[in-house]
């Protein structure tokens, strides 16, 4: 098991830059999520760590060793593909033992090892079956078996649950997490599903257009996004944005949104021009005397809560309020964001302005 360090890694395909100078560290034993929309460079980053692509520049350290330009076979890592890539011409046992045989392990030793792994994954009874007829879940388990049988330094998974149906996905993600908790192996996991990333990950890197937007533990990223992209990408419904003209100076703890004065966490840097106030739907209360006025457009019932959509002079706002509260359509009411959980962004650059609340988190990223 090993720590993985990515330093200034960059990948170009001809004129197209897939990954721009990324730097982050994956600690030993971490379940690490690479999160982003499709085409953001997360898979390319993973493939560079695995040695399936070679970085154009930059260094990749696995267990302290620089492996950036080495082929996959010399990195001692395991990879679980989205479509599993089980060898169709071998049975389940053959698939799992394949990486062992490449290391020159004897047939008998490999057999013992395969049995052991099969027991962990609960697939002992299908070892002699061909892989063609397996269910999605069993394929997934065989692919995992092939990965863990070798005790590699790290596991890389490229959307391993993407090919499963929704119901089974939930179950498999729990199984995966449980397996990780038992083995404590460094795992890097690529996904475009923010919920999956937050549920399973010890740490998350959010990427967009080949750039690392933010890097940290799920809760920090969710609460204190470093950019508007991260704020929008995580959470459902996503963060509310109120866009307005204004300015703030260090030590300000309030901001004027139109005529409304809103308390915010004390600001640490200057911001002016077009600013955006961001707050999560669950951090909004609807109060008749609140300074920002909004007209109710719709309400979605979600069981214990409902999502109320309001239109304001600064943009649309969604509020998560208890479902027992009656919110009639077309009524105008006041919106009060929780002052402790507000993030102020510079609209132009999309960057969060540093404040007492988020400065620690943002320094990390």
């Amino acid at each position, binding site marked *: 098991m090993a720590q993985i360090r990515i330093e200034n890694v960059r990948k170009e395909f001809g004129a197209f830059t897939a990954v721009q100078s990324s730097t982050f560290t994956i600690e030993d034993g971490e379940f690490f999520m690479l999160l982003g929309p499709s085409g953001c460079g997360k898979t390319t980053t993973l493939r560079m760590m695995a040695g399936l692509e070679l970085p154009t520049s930059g260094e990749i350290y696995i267990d302290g060793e620089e492996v950036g330009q080495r082929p996959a*076979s010399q990195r001692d890592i395991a990879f679980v593909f989205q479509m599993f*890539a089980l060898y169709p011409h071998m049975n389940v046992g053959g698939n799992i033992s394949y990486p062992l045989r490449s290391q020159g392990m004897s047939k008998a030793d490999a057999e013992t090892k395969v049995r052991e792994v099969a027991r962990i994954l609960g697939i002992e009874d299908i070892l002699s079956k061909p892989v063609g007829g397996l269910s999605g879940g069993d394929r997934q388990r065989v692919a995992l078996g092939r990965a863990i049988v070798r005790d590699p330094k790290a596991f890389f998974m490229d959307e391993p649950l993407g090919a499963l149906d929704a119901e089974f996905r939930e179950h498999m993600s729990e199984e995966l997490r449980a397996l990780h908790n038992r083995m404590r192996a460094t795992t890097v996991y690529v996904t475009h599903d923010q919920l999956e990333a937050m549920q399973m990950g010890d740490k998350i890197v959010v990427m967009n257009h080949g750039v690392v937007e933010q890097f940290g533990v799920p809760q920090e990223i969710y609460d204190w996004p470093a950019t508007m992209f991260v704020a929008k990408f995580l959470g459902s419904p996503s963060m509310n944005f109120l866009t307005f003209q204004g300015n703030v100076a260090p030590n300000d703890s309030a901001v004027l949104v139109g005529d409304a004065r809103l308390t915010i966490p004390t600001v640490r840097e200057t911001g002016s021009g077009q600013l955006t106030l961001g707050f999560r739907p669950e951090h909004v209360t609807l109060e008749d005397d609140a300074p920002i006025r909004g007209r109710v457009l719709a309400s979605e019932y979600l069981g214990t809560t409902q999502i109320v959509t309001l239109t304001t002079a600064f943009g649309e706002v969604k509020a998560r309020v208890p479902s027992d509260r009656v919110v009639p359509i077309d009524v105008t009411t006041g919106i009060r964001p929780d002052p402790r959980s507000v993030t102020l962004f510079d609209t132009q650059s999309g960057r969060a302005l540093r404040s007492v609340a988020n400065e620690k988190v943002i320094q990390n990223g």
Partner: protein
Amino acid sequence: MSFSVTEPSNRQKWFAGVLVVGYALITIMPLLWIIATGFKSPADAIAYPPKVVFEPTVEGYVNLFTSRTRATEDMLAELGEPTTWYDRIVRQYDMVITGPSRYGERFLNSVIIGFGSTFLCIVLGTAAAYAFSRFRVPLKDDLLFFILSTRMMPPIAVAIPIFLMFRQLGLNDTHAGMILLYTAVNLSLSVWLLKGFIDEIPIEYEEAALIDGYTRFQAFYKVVLPQAATGIASTAIFCLIFAWNEYAFAVLLTSGTAQTAPPFIPTIIGVGGQDWPAVAAGATIFLVPVMVFTILLRKHLLRGITFGAVRK
């Protein structure tokens, strides 16, 4: 006809059966006729109206494999009674066997040249197709088009230049020359077909093998080749059938040492009258290897030609 997901009705099945049997009969008839003619006597072979029921004889086969000469009565008397069954057959026509015919060697030439060029086509074709499928080859599309363009005119259109080139290079009437020629003609087909098959194999299999600790070459022959077997088999059949049946180049470029069976078989006609049974016998035997090869690989062939038609 309507397409339905339910079991076809008996009437539909019957209709389909009749169609298939009818088509099979039409294609098989000439073949059966040739096989039958091989077992007729020369008189029966040219009888009019044609004889469907006849007394079978292996005369044609004897004539195919032997050279014979007409003997005078004195000579025949001197030779005494025929000692073997084939002597006896020949003696009916006052002929004696002077030695084996050249059919055996021509047939062997066909085997060497046909299978040799097929083998080369598959080896080179698979390597090229793999490279085109997997690597960033500069000008890939242009190269592929160029390879295909070699098929855009009938090969025989370049017969004269090839003849002249072969003469300069000393490849005229050699096995190597014919293998080279058939490989050159077939290679474009084999590259294109095999590229299609290899494209269908997800690259993740090789990547999985690379990560499992294999080199790229090991990944190629342990993971890609077994999965491409179907495609390789059907490509091999196409290449073999072409090389096996090729007539025009064989007539032009071979005469003695490297002559294949197709140009040889018609020359039988010129030897001692129009011996159709011998010609038919030669054609029948000539059919056997390709038939066996195709039957052995027919499962692959069936899957092969429909491969890629449906996304799995």
